[in-house]
């Protein structure tokens, strides 16, 4: 009987349940997708870094599991805020607490079960789309990678069912412990207390100092070394918490004392925000820290990626070297736009293990080589090799020429000889075609084809010894590619989940806010004024942690770039990633405003 009533309660609020379900389904889908890709051997062994990438993925998995836990907790809170009244009523009517507990656990698990199954189905679709997209983006081959992966399905089911079971029991416990009357009236009154001024001051000063200290530590990583990470972590977490608990409260209080407060609904809006910020301290701190983590992950990930061409080209001027290229290879070279080429003659003496070059030719059309002038800033200089440079085996010029040898001649000694001597050597001369692609990223597909043909030609064992800087490019792309994938994936997943956590937290308060908005409506507040106030409140709650998160990232990146980890400008991709991030965040903000308004703004009673 109660079960039926319970069902009808859900039906009446199906729109709110829809929000809950879509949030849960997306979360499950994200979790599945990550599991499917990270635990799938085909993916990890396909990438050049193999096992070490797997380790990074497992680390990501754990982070994802933690944020999922937090997410389920908030979604569940939202669920309970919708059901409190109904269950309170049942208890008032004399339903035994055991029966209520059973109902609550059943309902929570049922919701968990449905959303998990639906989430896995959606997740398989996501995986298909994302894996092929990412593979094309980072030149990773995903041959026979299947989006459906049984171990990942099991992981997801176990993870979420356990989470929901825990959530169900927790819910039941809180319910049984609260009296029916409290449940019925919960949300109607809040225990707002004006915080003490001295405590606010102490916390505010402490918070700002801690944040400043943390930022400084990250900035000064060169001196502090690993200590910087430890100091930064502790001070920023604590600082963020205090800043939310006091600094922003005081800031809002300052605004309340200004003349602005008496305008329209400002007094209400400011008070709501002030009240919320203290109430939300924990979640706002978590949001801003995770926001920073997520944004940082993406920025660093894509930052590494954009370093690759410079890093590769700094190591070697020429992208590929072709010995006696076939017509097919020649036509591929022809496909490369924006390039410079040079051809040298070469004679090989396999017995003496020597490669001979014509000095006159090297003088007439000199070899170019590149050399890092500032490795940390990824600055390199291109120079022209003189013949005497090339004769010194420890010179950069010699290194460049050596690196351009085919696998067959790699271990041979390079000899630069006069034209006469060169002509007298009685073997057929090889042609060595050196190709420099100025835009490696753009020519990568063609260059890949060339190296693939060469790999066949020399046998796969020769791959590592392949000539030219493009091999380095490919290798780095592989390593940084999985880092970038991790960064983007975790970044988006984090943002999506933490924004929904914030959304659910705000929506959980909607029921109690409804009374306030009803009252404001009665005393004659226009609907547009109410909506304006809602937008401002939610905007504040979204923006403040967002801004703090961005500041965290700005200083966090200092650590990477000054620490020499992220060579050559961690800020390169910062703008783009932040913009993308903000768009996604904005979307969540708008959805929250829409749903919240639907719940709290009194409906028009005008009949037409």
């Amino acid at each position, binding site marked *: 009987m109660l079960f039926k009533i319970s069902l009808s309660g859900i039906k009446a609020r199906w729109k709110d349940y829809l929000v809950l379900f879509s949030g849960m389904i997306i979360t499950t889908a994200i979790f599945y997708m990550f599991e499917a890709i990270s635990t799938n051997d085909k993916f990890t062994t396909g990438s050049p870094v193999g096992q070490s990438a797997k380790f990074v993925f497992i680390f990501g998995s754990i982070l994802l599991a933690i944020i999922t836990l937090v997410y389920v907790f908030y979604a569940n809170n939202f669920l309970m805020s919708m059901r409190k009244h109904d269950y309170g009523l049942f208890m008032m009517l004399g339903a035994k607490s055991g029966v209520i507990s059973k109902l609550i656990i059943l309902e929570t698990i049922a919701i968990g079960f449905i959303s998990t199954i639906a989430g896995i189905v959606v997740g398989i679709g996501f995986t298909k789309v994302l894996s092929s997209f990412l593979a094309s983006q980072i030149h990773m081959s995903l041959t026979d990678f299947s989006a459906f992966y049984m171990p990942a399905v099991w992981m997801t089911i176990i993870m979420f069912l356990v989470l929901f079971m825990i959530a169900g029991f927790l819910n039941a416990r809180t319910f049984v412990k609260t009296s029916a009357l409290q449940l019925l009236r919960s949300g109607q009154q809040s225990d*707002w207390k004006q915080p003490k001024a001295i405590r606010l001051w102490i916390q505010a000063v402490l918070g700002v100092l801690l944040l400043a200290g943390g930022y400084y530590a990250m900035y000064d990583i060169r001196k502090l070394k690993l200590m910087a990470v430890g100091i930064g972590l502790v001070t920023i977490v604590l600082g963020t918490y205090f800043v939310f608990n006091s600094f922003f409260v005081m800031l809002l209080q300052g605004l309340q004392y200004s*003349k602005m407060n*008496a305008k329209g609904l400002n007094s209400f809006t400011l*008070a709501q925000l*002030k009240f919320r910020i203290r109430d939300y301290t924990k979640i706002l701190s978590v949001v801003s820290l995770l926001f920073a983590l997520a944004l940082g992950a993406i920025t660093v990930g894509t930052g590494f990626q954009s370093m690759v061409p410079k890093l590769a080209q700094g190591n070697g001027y020429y992208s590929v070297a072709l010995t006696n290229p076939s017509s097919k290879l020649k036509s591929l070279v022809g496909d490369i736009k924006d390039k410079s080429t040079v051809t040298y003659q070469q004679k090989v003496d396999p017995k003496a293990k020597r490669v001979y070059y014509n000095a006159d030719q090297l003088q007439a059309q000199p070899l170019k080589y590149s050399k890092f002038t500032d490795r940390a800033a990824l600055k390199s200089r291109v120079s022209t090799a003189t013949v005497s440079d090339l004769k010194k085996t420890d010179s950069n010029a010699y290194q460049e020429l050596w690196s351009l040898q085919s696998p067959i001649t790699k271990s041979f000694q390079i000899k630069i000889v006069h034209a006469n001597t060169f002509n007298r050597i009685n073997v057929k001369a090889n042609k060595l075609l050196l190709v420099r692609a100025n835009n490696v990223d753009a020519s990568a597909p063609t260059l890949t084809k060339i190296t693939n043909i060469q790999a066949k030609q020399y046998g796969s064992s020769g791959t590592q010894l392949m000539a030219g800087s493009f091999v380095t490019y490919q290798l780095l792309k592989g390593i940084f590619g999985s880092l970038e994938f991790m960064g983007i994936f975790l970044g988006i997943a984090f943002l999506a989940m933490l924004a929904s956590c914030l959304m659910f937290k705000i929506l959980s308060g909607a029921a109690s806010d409804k009374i306030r908005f009803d*009252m404001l409506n009665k005393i*004659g507040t226009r609907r547009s004024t109410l909506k304006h106030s809602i937008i401002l409140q939610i905007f504040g709650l979204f923006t403040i942690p967002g801004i703090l998160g961005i500041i965290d990232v700005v200083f966090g990146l200092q650590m990477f770039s000054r620490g020499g980890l992220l060579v050559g400008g961690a800020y390169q991709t910062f703008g783009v990633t932040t913009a993308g991030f903000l768009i996604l965040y904005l979307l969540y903000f708008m959805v929250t405003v829409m749903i919240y308004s639907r719940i709290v703004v009194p409906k028009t009673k*005008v009949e037409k």
Partner: protein
Amino acid sequence: MTTKIVETQDLHKIYDKNSAKPYEALKGISLSVEQGEFVGIMGASGSGKTTLLNILATLDQPTSGSVEIDGQDVTHLTFNQMADFRSKKLGFIFQDFNLLETLTARENIGLPLSLQNAKAASIQTAVTSAAEKLGIADLLDKYPTQLSGGQKQRVAAARALVFNPSIIFGDEPTGALDSTNARELLDTLTHINQQGVSILLVTHDPFSASFCKRILFIKDGKIGDEIDAGDKSRNDFYQEILEKLGTFEQ
């Protein structure tokens, strides 16, 4: 000659009009409240008191009939016009949740003026004078949680009074108060009324009703009867109400 503050003609309200089971809550109500009157509306539960009050207070619209408040027809206003009308002309005291817990008494009282975009300085003087009238001047910087139930209702009364409304509406304003606090609020309302503010009170409590000067009885969506306090003492009037309820509710 007295002016009419509220005048309704043949009000009908049908809930769920287009559904399978429409329900007619008001079946032709005509009434008027004069400037400075203290009118009570009584009736059994479900008789349509709240429905009527919501329509008079422009929180809802009638299915047919007209409502004039302070000489203005309010039945054809848009949603925004209704809101503006409420914020300028109508004061409210409800049973519960009158105040915003996150605002001080001062801010709560000043809210209607803020909504009308009054100057900060003029809001301060209006708030202070309303608070003095109700004897809560020393409580202005407290938060609602620091006030007693009766004090809260007096703050609510001050808010209803602060912009000199044409009329104050109350729906069971004493419903959540104990007898001492209820008594205090009713005295306050009487005091406000004596200063010339019209009041319309919905209640089913005979004691609260005895403070009114005239009482309309609603039964099944129609006005069934009306009694006047005249020169009777409050106690006599109370007895009369009890008798009336006895006969009326059979």
